[in-house]
C-alpha cells in the first residue's frame, strides 16, 4: 500500500525557520511550512495554545497564491519554541488517533446493531 500523501516534487524540507529569528533566543520562532494551509495550521495552533508554557501561538497564510503557512510561537524562558512545536505535533497525533479509534468503534457498533 502506498502512502496517502502525494510525493513532494520540489524536494527539500517542508519546514524551515524564518530568517532573523534566532537572534532573539530559543523562545521565539516563526516556522515556514511549504504546501500547508488552514487544515494543519489551525489544528497546530489549537494544540500549541493548550500548552501552558506557550505564551503566543498564531498562524497566517501570507498570500493565498503561494502555498505557504507561517506559524509564530513564543514560549516562556528556558522552553525552546521547537520543543513546543514538536509537542504540538505529538499531541495532535494522539488526538487524531483517538478520534479515529472512536469513529471506527462507533461504525462497528452501529453496524452490529443494524444486523
Amino acid at each position: 500500500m502506498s502512502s496517502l500523501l502525494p510525493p513532494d516534487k520540489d524536494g527539500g524540507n517542508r519546514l524551515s525557520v524564518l530568517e532573523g529569528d534566532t537572534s532573539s533566543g530559543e523562545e521565539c520562532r516563526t516556522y515556514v511550512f511549504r504546501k500547508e494551509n488552514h487544515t494543519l495550521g489551525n489544528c497546530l495552533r489549537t494544540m500549541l495554545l493548550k500548552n501552558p508554557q506557550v505564551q503566543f501561538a498564531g498562524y497566517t497564510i501570507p498570500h493565498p497564491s503561494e502555498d505557504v503557512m507561517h506559524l509564530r510561537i513564543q514560549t516562556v524562558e528556558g522552553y525552546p519554541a521547537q520543543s513546543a512545536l514538536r509537542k504540538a505535533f505529538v499531541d495532535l497525533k494522539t488526538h487524531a488517533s483517538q478520534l479515529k479509534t472512536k469513529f471506527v468503534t462507533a461504525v462497528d457498533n452501529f453496524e452490529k446493531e443494524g444486523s
Partner: protein
Amino acid sequence: MTEFSFSSKNKLTLKEFEIVNTSNYDFSGHFADPHKQENELKVEIVKIEDDGMFLEFDMIGYDPSVANAVRRLLLSDVPTMAIEKVHIYQNTSIMQDEVLAHRMGLIPLKADPRLFKWKEEGTEDEGTEDDTLQFSLQVRCKHNPDKSSGDPYLDNKVFTKHLKWIPKGSQKDKLINPGPVEDDILINKLRPGHEMDMKLFAVKGVGRDHAKFSPVATAFYRLHPEIRINRDVFDESAIRLVKCFTPGVMQLEPTEDGRKKAKVLDARNDMCSRNVFRHEDLKDAVTLEKRKDHFIFNVESTGAIKSTELVPMAIDVLLEKCELYINEIDSQSKE
C-alpha cells in the same frame, strides 16, 4: 419554567441582527478546558445509507479546528483515481475534443486508490500496472436497420457503459471491475456517421490538484441547534410559532385547561431560518442557540470508497503529515 444550561460559554446565540458569542476564547493562558477528558469527546453514528456511501455522524466535544480539518481533508487530501490523459484517435462528433476530454476526467471510477502508486511526473502516459488504469472508448453511430423499433439510430447516446477496461500486466488478477461507478452517465450524443475512438489513462490524484480527484460528492458539518422557550405560548400564537421552524422541530401539546402549548420536540433538524424574528410578538418567546462543540457531519461519497472508510482515511492523512513533520524536526535538530 427555564431549562438549566450547563455553560453559556459553549453556545452561540442567533439574535435578530447578529450572532453573538461565536469566538472560542482561544488565547494562551485561557484554559476553559485544559486537555478535555477523553470521555467528554464522543463520536456517534446517526445514519448510514446507500450501501455505505452516505454517512451522517456527530462529533461532540471536539475543537472546531479538528472538525474543520477533517472536513477539509475529506474534500482535498484523500486520494482517488480519475482519468487524466485522453488519447483521441478519432472524434467526429459535435463535442470538441477538449470538452470531451474534460468530461471524461469527471467520471467517478470505482478503482481503490490505495492499491495504486503515485505516478511520477514526466513519465509517459501509458504508465505501468502499478500507477495507471487504462480504458478504451470506441463507439460508432449507425442507422437502425430495424425500421419497426422506435429508435432510428444505433448507439447514438454514448454512456459510461461503453467504456472498456484494458487490464495491464497483473491487474486482471488484482482488480475487479475498476470501471465507472454508474453505467448510465451520458458522455456524448452521436448521429449516423459519427465515431469516437479514444484511449483513457486514469491515475491517482488529490482534490487539491483538481476537483475531479475529490472522493466525496460533498462533506460538510453544521452545529447542533438549540431552541429554548422563554415564556409559554398558547393557541393561535403557538400555531404560528410552530410554523416558524422546520417541520418536526416544535409541536403543540395540550395543557390541563384545554389550551394548546408550544413545545420543542427535537431541535436537531432545525434549519435555523430565524423566521421567528418576523413576528413581533413571538421574538422574545424563544432563544435560538447553537452548541459550539457539537458538529453534525454529512459525508456523501462519489462511489469509489465508502464514507465509513473515507473518514478514517482523512484522519490517516493528518497522522501522516504529523509523522512527516516530527521526522523533519528530529532530523533538523540533529544537524
